[in-house]
């Protein structure tokens, strides 16, 4: 691990440090002496950076930005990791099986993936959330926890075809190799061949894309919030941006702070994903 880190390029190192920092904030941020992200400070609405008691200032409503960033990291990252994890597992499984089997199943699966991919991420997520997490009856409120689950579900569906296609493509290149025939000639069952011979070769391609997918999902979550269907009344980076969208001239830091954090995180994830893809893109000649 240490050796791996020291071999990284400088941008990748910085990215890794930033991502690790954000993850630590999400996990252990509640230990810090911060004000409650849901409580507003009536004496300091819209104060700037480095104000006493509010390191990153507050927004126009007096909510502490640092506290919202820290607690929002938990929600945003949780949504991202769970949906990418689920979507990654489901998508890879579908992709690997369909590429290994070929035939009609493969045709159906890749057509399905192509249809899902042809719908822009945001539109797909928006449609799912709009149908599943909005009530027509104004009196019935949908609790934030249910909204989060539905957002995770929608983003999972967005991720499945992305990872599925990668896994399918990688499997196609590995499933007809001579060592797969050799394993068959030893009497291995398909299940054993897939787990022992195909999956270990396909995984590197998937790892790299997982990082990129986390970035995609964080952005999607923010965008959904901005469109009014995200974790609107909860605490997340997207919710922060959505909340201050109208009053941003009054307290510009309330927009800059979450957007900067979100952008840095996504850029870092992309950088790490690209770096990993380069490192793990093993050709036979190199290994």
């Amino acid at each position, binding site marked *: 691990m240490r050796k791996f880190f020291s071999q990284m390029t400088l941008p990748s190192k910085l990215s890794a440090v930033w991502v690790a920092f954000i993850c630590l904030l999400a996990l252990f941020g509640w230990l810090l002496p911060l004000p409650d992200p849901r409580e507003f400070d009536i004496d300091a609405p819209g104060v700037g950076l480095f104000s006493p008691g509010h390191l990153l200032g507050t927004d126009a409503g007096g909510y502490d930005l640092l506290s919202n960033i820290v607690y929002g990291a938990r929600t945003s990252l949780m949504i991202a990791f769970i949906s990418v994890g689920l979507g990654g597992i489901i998508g890879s499984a579908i992709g690997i099986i369909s590429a290994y089997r070929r035939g009609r199943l493969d045709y159906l699966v890749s057509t399905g993936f192509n249809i899902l991919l042809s719908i822009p991420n945001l539109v797909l997520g928006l449609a799912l959330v709009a149908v599943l997490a909005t009530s027509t009856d104004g009196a019935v409120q949908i609790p934030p926890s249910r909204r989060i689950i539905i957002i995770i579900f929608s983003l999972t569906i967005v991720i499945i075809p992305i990872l599925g296609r990668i896994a399918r493509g990688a499997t196609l290149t590995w499933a007809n190799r*001579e060592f797969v025939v050799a394993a068959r000639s*030893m*009497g291995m*069952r398909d299940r054993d061949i897939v787990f*022992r011979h195909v999956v270990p070769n396909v995984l590197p391609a998937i790892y790299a894309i997982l990082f990129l997918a986390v970035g995609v999902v964080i952005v999607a979550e923010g965008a959904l919030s901005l469109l009014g269907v995200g974790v609107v009344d909860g605490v997340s980076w997207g919710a922060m941006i959505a909340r201050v969208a109208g009053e941003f001239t009054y307290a510009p830091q309330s927009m800059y702070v979450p957007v900067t954090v979100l952008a840095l995180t996504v850029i870092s994830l992309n950088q790490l994903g690209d770096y990993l893809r380069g490192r793990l893109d093993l050709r*036979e000649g190199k*290994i």
Partner: protein
Amino acid sequence: MTSIMSIRDLSVRFETPRGLLEAVRGASLEIAEGTSIGIVGESGSGKTVLSRAAMGLLSGRNVRREGTVVFAGKELTAMRPAQVREEFGTGMAMIFQDPMTALNPVRRIGVQLAEGPRVRLGMDKKAARARSVELLSLVRIPDPESMLNKFPFQLSGGMRQRVMIAIALACKPELLFADEPTTALDVTVQAQILQLLSDLRRELKMSMVLVTHDLGVVANHTDYVAVMYAGEIVEQAPTTELFANMKMPYTEALLNSIPKIDSKSGARMRVIEGRLPDPTDRPAGCGFAARCSYVQDKCREEHPPLLDSGNGHLYRCWFPLGHTIARKQ
């Protein structure tokens, strides 16, 4: 002598966009128990397809296999794939041409070796490890213990092929197919690997099918030879009989195309002119007619049947060598 495998009238055709490609046509071969059979022919003559089809390794929607293959009394061609699979590893096993592509690049040697014994023989981890060490010493690999933790890329070509052989032998097969086991190796290593295979075959009392394009290899390491050309077995005989009494002009041409160590430096290599016929569109007569130096009109018009000259020597030629009338032309 009982035969461990009999192949009867085996044909393999592939559906391609250009039409049916006939890779093997009407091949019949008896593999006697405890013997070594060579299948010789140039690239594209169908020797690899024949051995894979005999074992039942060809899969895919575009493959059409006809004929029967009987292994150890069981008719493989009538069995379901899951039943045939039961014979793999323990009954039949195969060594592949290129040990780099036939070993999984991302998994350690020890894991790949132990796979057969664990999955097919139900050994536990410890027993499978012991078996792996035993197998590696069987194929004369020094320090087998440390070899278990290496990856294929850390090994030389010869070592990798030894590992491949060890993997194929892991479940004690009765019949071993060796599909050009030395083609991807250095000349210096080729002889070692072939010697190893011959020794192991005798030690373990296996039968072996050795697929090669080299008649020299066949002469040294087999009891019986089948020569393939354009998907057909054109001549088959016990090895000594074949070399003493060659019938097919094609076999002779193959033999002549081996470079001689005493030929003058700078002398032209003797090659077989022309190419194999298009397997989707075969000529009416003998497939070798267009390239044969003894060709007659009859050769171009009628397909020669498989004739028996006694001594178990079969050939497919209208004007076999040693036939004075034909030679004068």
